[in-house]
């Protein structure tokens, strides 16, 4: 086996050195009644070429672009990934390193993550960002737990237009600890109804997603004001970071913690993971933050360098009193996002965001023209909700046979929205793609 370098001679001489008769003799400390009986029932080894053929065949049984036109986002977005980013990610000095516990040998990872933290903080208008959380959903759960710790209150309000799966994750994190989650309803225009917040006592935090699950841009400033009056923290969530290439940042609008999904920044969709939990906050709360942080420092010769820092928050030092149990995070995904942000820059990010917005507006307009309902009239970014007549389901299936996924049906998450579909348009869809879609929908 090519990954196992030991020759029979090596094994023999090493066994002699350790005083064992054979390889089975290396385990005298495992009692007989703890030994496995019988071999593992696993398939026999494949050659590199057999494996490639097998995986190739499996991968062909999945609907992906360009063969399929997928007009579906809902928390996972198809964006072009620059070849330079993919290429740089094959640098195995990044890929095959561990968490940078030994900074002198890990300056590459450390500077890159410091830069990532800085760019995320700037994108979101926050003072400090961590080195990453697993995904947007777990980032929101961690943010709410952080607010519970800071305020010592055990109840949070979360918009029902926060991604439904994110809310499910928050509930899972909250259940064993016994914290309470109250959901806020949404209004006719597709944004959160914030009015209940005024009358709620003991809120640790309010969480609002913008653009929200329906693609609508929320009034974050108003939400911030309400929850701050109520002495809770304002948490903003997002699934599409590219929106902040164009939109006012959460920080400018009063967020105490801004967190969400960073997959759009150069990370493949990969059936939902690995992706990137972005997490940023105000500096005054930094010691309550979860996750790794990289800081700048000096070496003994006065040369600038970077280290993991504020470890006294973390599990390996504080154990059960840590701010989170997180250890391995999604560092390589953070590196990817950093490469992507650096490649796009202010100029590219804003232009790309505008293209996404304009294309989605084009499809919205064309669908409207074709007589399809657009139920929510709030401004949107690159996603929006469409209301079809009840018999659309058969059209939806027919389109799939034609290799078009016409949005995401909302009824499974919002039973009251039967016949409503969430559409997404990114820069990967051309005007022709959209015209073809409209034509298919309204023959």
């Amino acid at each position, binding site marked *: 086996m090519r990954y196992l370098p030991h020759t029979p001679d090596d094994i023999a001489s090493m066994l002699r050195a350790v005083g064992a008769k054979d390889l089975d003799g290396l385990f005298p400390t495992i009692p007989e009644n703890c030994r496995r009986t019988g071999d593992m029932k696993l398939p026999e080894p494949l050659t590199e070429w057999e494996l490639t053929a097998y995986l190739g065949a499996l991968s062909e049984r999945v609907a992906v672009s360009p063969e399929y036109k997928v007009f579906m986002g809902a928390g996972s977005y198809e964006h072009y990934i620059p070849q330079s980013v993919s290429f740089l990610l094959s640098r195995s000095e990044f890929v095959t390193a561990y968490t940078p516990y030994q900074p002198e040998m890990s300056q590459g990872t450390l500077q890159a993550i410091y830069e990532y933290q800085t760019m995320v903080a700037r994108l979101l208008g926050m003072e400090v960002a961590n080195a990453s959380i697993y995904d947007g959903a777990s980032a929101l759960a961690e943010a709410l737990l952080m607010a519970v710790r800071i305020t010592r209150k055990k109840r949070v309000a979360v918009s029902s237009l926060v991604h439904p799966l994110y809310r499910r994750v928050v509930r899972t994190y909250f259940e064993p600890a016994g914290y309470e989650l109250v959901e806020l309803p949404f209004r006719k225009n597709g944004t959160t109804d914030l009015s209940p917040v005024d009358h709620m006592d003991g809120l640790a935090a309010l969480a609002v997603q913008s653009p929200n699950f329906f693609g609508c841009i929320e009034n974050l400033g108003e939400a911030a004001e309400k929850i701050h009056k109520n002495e809770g923290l304002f948490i903003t969530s997002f699934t599409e970071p590219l929106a902040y290439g164009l939109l006012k940042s959460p920080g400018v609008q009063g967020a105490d913690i801004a967190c969400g999904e960073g997959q759009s920044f150069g990370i493949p969709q990969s059936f939902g993971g690995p992706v990137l939990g972005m997490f940023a906050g105000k500096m005054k709360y930094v010691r309550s933050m979860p996750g790794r942080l990289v800081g700048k420092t000096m070496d003994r010769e006065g040369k600038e360098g970077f280290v993991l820092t*504020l470890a006294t928050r973390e599990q390996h030092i504080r154990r*059960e009193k840590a701010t989170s149990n997180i250890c391995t995070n999604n*560092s390589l995904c953070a590196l990817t996002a950093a490469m992507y942000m650096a490649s796009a820059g202010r100029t590219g990010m804003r232009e790309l965001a505008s293209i996404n917005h304009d294309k989605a507006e084009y499809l919205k307009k064309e669908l409207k023209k074709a007589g399809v309902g657009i139920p929510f009239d709030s401004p949107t970014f690159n996603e929006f909700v469409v209301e079809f007549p009840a018999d659309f389901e058969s059209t939806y299936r027919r389109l799939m046979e034609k290799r078009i996924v016409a949005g995401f049906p909302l009824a499974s998450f919002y039973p009251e929205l039967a016949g409503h579909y969430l559409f997404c348009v990114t820069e990967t869809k051309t005007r022709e793609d959209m015209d073809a879609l409209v034509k298919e929908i309204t023959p």
Partner: protein
Amino acid sequence: MKESLGTTGLILNEPLLWEKGKSGRCGISLPRHDVDPAPLDKDLTTEGPDLPDLSEVDVVRHYTRLSQWNFGVDSGMYPLGSCTMKYNPKINEKLANLKGFSGAHPLLPAHLSQGVLKLMFELEQFLAEITGMDAVTLQPAAGAHGELTGMMLIHAYHKKKGGHRSKIIVPDTAHGTNPASAALCGYRPVPVRSNEQGILSTGAVAELMDEDTAGIMVTNPNTLGLFEENIKKIAEIVHSKGGLVYCDGANMNAVMGIVSMGEIGVDVLHLNLHKTFSTPHGGGGPGSGPVCVRKHLIPFLPVPRIIEKNGAYALSSEFPESIGKLQAFYGNFGVMIKAYCYIRSMGPVNLRKASQLAVLNANYIKENLKKVFHLPYDRNCMHECVFSDKFQNAYKITTLDMVKRLMDYGFHPPTIYFPLVVSGAMMIEPTETESKETIDLFIDSLKAVANEAKENPDLLRQAPGRCKVTRLDEVSAARHPCLAG
């Protein structure tokens, strides 16, 4: 000693991104703007985030230079204890990037994602077989996430049984993530000390186990690299009081095909695909932390679960007792592909051999270095061995000094100052993918360092001398945090 691996070479300085950028450059190919502009209300927008503008060449040079300041498994031996830094096969990287996998939208209907679902379903079965457990969830994103999932499963189990339990037993050798994960579920970790042999005694567990204790979190093999010989008895004690046994499987690399976790009394176990199953660690993730359970915990597993019917695969959330979800989607699929490829490339015989060779390498290092460094538990070890700096303290040299000097010899340091029960611990895990020649050079290098500790201790205190930077000031970094530029 053969010639040292460590040498000096030209690396390049590279400023921070924003010191390099120049407004007006752009490093991506912008797609065509083939529709009319439809500007948003000015109140909602800005002129774009404050990111530096760079060309594609700028970005490529930047990250290429940074990568050259790093050390990975592909650079050399990386014997971080409990981290299992084995070789990461290249074919796995290639196959994880197949368009049908990397381009898959997670909300595709089942009939459009059969290839993905089949792979995940089979991987669950393989992991169940390797661990001897009954069912697996692939959803947790990392080891600590798996621990949290496991704790939630235990919590849900006790809740269903109608009893709330407030404590959980955690050995003093446990990873810090263990008590932190337990605390997230509202459990108070009760420490149990390991005995003079470095393992848990049945008596110590029996003394603590009661009906207010949810169970025990045990790492086996433990972080001293020792097999918990009393595990079967301990499991019986815990079970007799209605508790459950959680096993941290971070060290599974020592026992594949040798121990069946299900048979020794483990109820729930997490694996680290980025350790045992060869997926790269990425400088701190992404990992993947599948959780394997025995039958009685299956109803509580996270949703959705992958189900198979007549060769067709689907995702199902029809499990009313499920704890819920740990991530928005199904876990780190991109990592799962690599672990799947590893298992299919190795087959049952080579997986078992990998564990045997990992144990052989660790014992070989232990035997060759135990005269040079203090070995607090001189017993047969599993996949790692733990030394201390006791002998070198005589020269006012610490573990930190020694491992910094080891860098100059071209090796990544082992895990240090952990486990906490060994003062000045040096925890060495070579893994099976290091050859005898590399290990011999590693042993010679550590011997040379130990010799320098005696002869020229200042050299160690000044180390490293061949890295991009000298020793960094971690204290002032924490005292005056500068976390963004």
